[in-house]
């Protein structure tokens, strides 16, 4: 009998791949089964935190948008709040409400983009095209309020740069009604679609203990049953004044994560409606003098972005530029610890479904 040599194949899930964003992973496969996955990030690394040490605080408020390209408002919110905590500033109520409205609209935008990308990699082109058309409604709202479609640069230390107009309030209500109708369409077209369910159910399953050990946060963790949502546990901005539910599921697989995000869109729509109804009058910004630039102190601020827990650790030593800024990016652990763990034992065809069900943004991971 001849001896057969068994060799394992290494396939690149390369940087140029329709299903991978700008991220490189080496898959070690035996036939169709994936035995291991080695991630190689860094294709989008700019050294963000080093760049922020060379710019003064108001300039950083504009730069930090691009740290997470799919949910830019959360980055601005985090940095501004961290600086305001060091300075001990109290934002007026109208400013807090406007910030929360924009943050929730950003969350809806990120989740709709995620529906589009996930459908594209699963081969479901129709849902992809429709979802990316629905994004335009929210980008139009961004443009009315701030002037910038994607990277608003709207937040400043002390509040928001300019007030929202009645046109914004009217257009937002119309857009929310449209999106709510679209949600029931997505339910029928995507989330209850037999093929979608077959491709996502029981794929990429993790238990609650494994998720906590790997450092998961956001909808990935809530789909395993742990109800950790920074908006409820360490409330900030206007969240103490609105009512919303924290969505959890028990199964921990890709389908549960998808349903968590779908329900979060509905919760965000309800939050924005409550905020618009109770929007207070008054000033939207604290007037600051030059003493706000030369700050000394350290602060750690956590918020709930669309991907998970995002934290800003800012150290300031009295000069106009920060001494050190560290951004805890949720996608860092989603892609580098959870994805290799979940990919082991699955088939090659399931890799894109697992990767995008974790909703990671390569620009957020690399910074």
């Amino acid at each position, binding site marked *: 009998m001849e001896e057969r040599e068994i060799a394992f194949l290494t396939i690149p899930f390369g940087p140029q791949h329709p299903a991978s964003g*700008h991220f490189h992973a080496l898959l070690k496969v035996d036939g169709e089964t994936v035995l291991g996955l080695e991630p190689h990030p860094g294709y989008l690394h700019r050294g963000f935190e080093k760049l922020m040490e060379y710019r003064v605080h108001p300039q950083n408020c504009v730069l930090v948008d691009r740290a997470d*390209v799919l949910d830019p408002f959360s980055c601005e919110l985090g940095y501004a709040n961290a600086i305001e905590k060091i300075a001990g500033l109290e934002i007026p109520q109208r400013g807090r409400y406007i910030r929360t409205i924009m943050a929730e609209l950003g969350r809806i935008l990120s989740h709709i983009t995620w529906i589009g990308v996930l459908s594209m990699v699963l081969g479901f082109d129709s849902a992809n095209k429709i979802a990316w058309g629905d*994004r335009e409604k929210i980008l139009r709202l961004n443009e009315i309020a701030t002037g910038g479609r994607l990277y608003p640069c709207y937040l400043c230390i002390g509040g928001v740069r300019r007030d929202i107009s009645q046109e914004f309030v009217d257009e937002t209500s119309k857009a929310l009604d449209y999106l709510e109708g679209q949600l029931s369409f997505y339910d029928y077209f995507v989330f209850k679609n037999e093929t979608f369910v077959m491709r996502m159910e029981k794929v990429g399953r993790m238990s609650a203990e494994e998720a906590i050990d790997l450092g998961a946060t956001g909808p990935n963790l809530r789909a395993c049953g742990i109800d950790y949502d920074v908006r409820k546990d360490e409330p900030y901005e206007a969240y103490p004044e609105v009512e919303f539910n924290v969505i959890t599921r028990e199964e921990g697989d890709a389908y549960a994560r998808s349903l968590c995000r779908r329900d979060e869109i509905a919760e965000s729509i309800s939050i924005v409606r409550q905020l618009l109804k109770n929007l207070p009058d008054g000033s939207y910004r604290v007037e600051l003098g030059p003493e706000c630039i030369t700050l000394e102190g350290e602060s750690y601020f956590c918020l709930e972005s669309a991907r998970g827990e995002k934290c800003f650790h800012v150290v300031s030593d009295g000069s106009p530029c920060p001494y050190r800024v560290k951004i805890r990016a949720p996608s860092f652990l989603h892609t580098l610890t959870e994805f290799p763990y979940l990919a082991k034992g699955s088939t090659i065809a399931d890799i894109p479904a697992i990767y995008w069900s974790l909703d990671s943004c390569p620009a957020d991971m690399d910074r």
Partner: protein
Amino acid sequence: MKKLTPKVIKSKSEARAWSVWVINYFTACGFMELLPWVGSGYDMERFGILPVPSPRHADVFIIAGYVTTKAAKRIKMIYDQMASPKYVLALGSCPMTGGMYWDSYATIKRVDEIIPVDLWIEGCPPKPENIGHGIVMAANAIKGGLKGH
């Protein structure tokens, strides 16, 4: 009633101009304003533009956003594999001069140091209307005989 005449494509350049295939490479943050073109917001498929996965099938390489030193090698590899005639579009201010990350140790400041560029579209990121203007300009240039490389 007006008689409808079929449109006759008169030259090879015209045929090429309205069936440009773009390589499917999500580069960086400037890419986010190409999403409405891929989706139903602005829809580039009605111009004959299709994203394709393989470099061998593609005609145009869109560099949307900043290029890091790690990605630069791969971009050169992909560009070399594309078949002639090929064109390169640079989107955003980062491939032009370094943009917002001009002082970053990890990004390339001018992308035409590694590959030749045919069309520059400015903006940070450029709005979809600007991108559309650039695409139509490029298609008309190809129809007019712009030689690819």
